[in-house]
């Protein structure tokens, strides 16, 4: 019997605002527990909700890049449930009139291109974080994330394979990160994905029993969870080994299986109703156009520009435009050093390998673009050679040194005095007379050895090209 898997996705994306959705607390990731809280986001009474305009604008941007129909007048609603990470006992979300509906995204897989349709996108506030502390046998609550703005992107059940799901998430990440909507980091939880999954016999149009899988924090985990869960469904149908129930299941990445979340089993009645404190928001054409006109370059436009206008290779361009962060580093460095090939080379070959050594990926690399460009400038104007430049980059990465100052203070500038180089060559020719003889007798390899000896005496601070040509001249003269 052949089965097909039917999936719909709910993707939560944290918006890149400075502050929270309904209060002026800092919304950035990584602060100490409860450092970014105030009476409003810790649930105290007497704090009316006033919405952050930037969050609405980023919501409009998300609607635009997903080809969605924006709701002319949207409203906010309250969703009621009790949980320790929800300090007010309700979440402010959009139930009746979300920011947009009926969008679509084109994805590309090994099967070709296809459109995934979206049901809606709504803006809502995030919940806090619970830490289960076994030492004291309690749950510890951190409200830093409470009320951080999110958009939830709800797809229709259009997905059939894990490959499609992964392609869709990759595409969403590129669209949203390049539009400045979110940094979309799965590891930090700024992009989270729940998968609604069911299986049915090929040819059937009815949907099977659906489960929702949560708690995957990488694309790999999502693909694995889908494979596991669809197989579990198929086994249940084939063998009758278990009865499928509609439920929420948690993915355990260590064990590689999904587990029923009993705590969420009771069918919840969320008692949604319109929030009387938040006035309706009209999104007119002028506002939409303003947001559209201020959208940054998309990943695809940038790829076209890099390959066509700047003459970069498809391979390099793909790496740079596959990450909003790398792409920002590229643009930032180009402002100071206008040589695209050189900049891309430094990013891909040098910067990424240093980052990799520190377990950092494309999205986490951070570099001061001005200093990065200064290194390239120092090489370009022959103040230093490439080897010293690489060492400088590492020093910037580790200690944030100022490269120009550092070169001056440590006298790393290249020896440009030809006389000094020639004298050093004469010294080496004398010391290494055996090698010189063997070279002259036809052992060509020894030329590089001699260059190396000269460089060593000059502490690496000479242009190897110049040393090469002066050495060749000297040996020739020596011959005559």
């Amino acid at each position, binding site marked *: 019997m052949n089965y097909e898997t039917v999936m719909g996705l709910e993707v939560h994306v944290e918006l890149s605002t400075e502050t929270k959705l309904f209060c002026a607390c800092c919304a950035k990731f990584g602060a100490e527990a409860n450092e970014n809280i105030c*009476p409003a986001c*810790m*649930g*105290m*009474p*007497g*704090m*009316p*909700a*006033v*919405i952050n305009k930037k969050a609405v604008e980023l919501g409009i941007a998300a609607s635009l890049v997903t080809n969605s129909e924006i709701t002319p007048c949207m409203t906010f609603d*309250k969703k*009621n449930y*009790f949980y*320790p990470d929800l*300090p*007010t*006992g*309700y979440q402010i979300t959009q139930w009746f009139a979300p920011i947009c509906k009926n969008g679509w995204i084109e994805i590309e897989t090994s099967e070709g291109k296809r459109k995934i349709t979206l049901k809606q996108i709504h803006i809502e506030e995030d919940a806090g974080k619970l830490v289960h502390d076994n030492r004291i046998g309690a*749950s510890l*609550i951190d409200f830093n994330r409470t009320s951080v703005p999110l958009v939830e992107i709800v797809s229709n059940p259009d997905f059939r394979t894990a490959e499609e799901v992964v392609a869709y998430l990759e595409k969403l990440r590129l669209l949203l990160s390049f539009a400045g909507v979110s940094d979309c980091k799965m590891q930090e939880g700024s992009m989270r994905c729940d998968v609604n999954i069911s299986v049915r016999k090929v040819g059937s149009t009815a949907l099977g029993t659906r489960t929702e899988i949560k708690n995957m924090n990488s694309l790999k985990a999502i693909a694995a969870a889908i494979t596991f869960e669809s197989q579990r469904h198929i086994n249940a149908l084939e063998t009758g080994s278990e009865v499928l129930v509609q439920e929420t299941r948690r993915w355990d990445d260590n064990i590689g299986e999904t587990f029923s979340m009993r705590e969420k089993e009771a069918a919840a*009645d969320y*008692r*949604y*109703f*319109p929030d*009387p*404190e*938040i*006035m309706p928001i009209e999104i007119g054409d002028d506002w939409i156009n303003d947001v559209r006109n201020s959208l940054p370059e998309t990943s695809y436009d940038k790829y076209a520009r890099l390959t066509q206008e700047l003459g970069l290779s498809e391979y390099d361009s793909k790496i740079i435009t596959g990450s909003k962060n790398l792409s920002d580093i590229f643009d930032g460095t180009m402002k100071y050093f206008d040589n695209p090939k050189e900049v891309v080379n430094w990013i891909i070959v040098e910067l990424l390998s240093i980052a990799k050594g520190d377990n950092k990926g494309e999205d986490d690399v951070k570099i001061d673009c001005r200093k990065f460009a200064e290194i390239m400038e120092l090489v370009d104007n022959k103040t230093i050679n490439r080897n010293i430049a690489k060492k400088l980059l590492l020093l910037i990465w580790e200690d944030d040194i100022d490269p120009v100052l550092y070169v001056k203070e440590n006298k790393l500038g290249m020896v440009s005095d030809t006389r000094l180089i020639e004298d050093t060559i004469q010294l080496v020719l004398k010391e290494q007379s055996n090698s010189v003889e063997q070279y002259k007798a036809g052992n060509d390899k020894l030329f590089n050895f001699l260059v190396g000896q000269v460089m060593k005496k000059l502490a690496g601070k000479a242009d190897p090209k110049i040393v090469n040509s002066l050495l060749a001249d000297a040996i020739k003269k020596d011959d005559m």
Partner: protein
Amino acid sequence: MSYFIEDYGVRGHNAVALEDSIMQKGKQVTANSKILEGFVSPFNAAVAERLINAQFTVAGKTSMNEFGIPSLLNGQTEVLGAVKVVSDGVVDYALCNDIFGQYRKQAAENSCCYIHPTYGTVSRFGIIPLASSMDRIGVVCKNISDGFNVLSKIAGNDFRDGAMYPEKTYKYEISDKRIRIGIPKAVTQKDELFDENVTKTLGECFQTVDMELENFDVYKQVVYILSCAEISNNISRYDGVKFGYRTPAYRGVNELYINTRSEGFGTDVKLTALMGAMVLSQENYVPYYEKAMKVRRLIKNSLRFDNYDVIALPCSIGNDPYENLSLYALSALAGLPSVTFKHNGHNIQLVGNVKREDLLLTAWEVCRHEL
């Protein structure tokens, strides 16, 4: 009886008493509920802040119904603290939040006045919320003219409350307009004395206009359904985790919630919370909550303030608190300002159009001098 839950000992013409739902920095605030026992506010309510900036001082915190919810069963037996401090002459003014009319009714009955301002003109920042679409701070006073002076100090847009009109300040001045008073006959007839005497005497000083309050028969249902839902939602934050009362006995989080809330709330609050959950629940949302929101629009749209300036209503129609809710529902549902006061032995409620407190003040002045 004691007027205050907490008495700061301040008296004099600039002393104002605050209901225990108005937060003051560093002071305990409980809305007379065990569930908020020990809760110390880390900030000042906007109205407290503005009073202090206008050189008023806080006399103390007055007692109230738990969260401001009057009992439907027993009615209001005791005089509420905010009314009593003013009627006994302890202070000249008290501020409180009055959705259901208990303060408006009692103020008139106890020879005081009450000013219930237009919704969205006084900041709700720092007020323990009851029903957010209706909450507003009003003034108990001896004299409506003086009461408006206090109101002018606290009213005006506050960026921390998003449900407000944009005006930064309001002036409440006597108008030279000839005021037309709308008399909803079908309602005033429910109080025979009011109907016979008050409508007649009002007719001597004002032009009176016969009018109808459409759907008056369901005012109380609409205000009850909408307010219980909003209250039920607003009090879900009290769970024994972040502040206030926590039950001493629990195993697990669910029991912590249930025991804390069962021990922390009184019966009237529990009834309200349960009714709120009911009207919002999946099967009842459309017939009750959504329906009530639609009827609210019908009620708001049915008013014809081009035909009259002020609507006169009695302050009670019998002893059933639920029936009496109908009389105070109009300002709650349409956001309208009102004043209540006693005149010639009758308790009068005047309801005006949005931001036309000036006409209420003017009507009161006319009554005072001519009736």
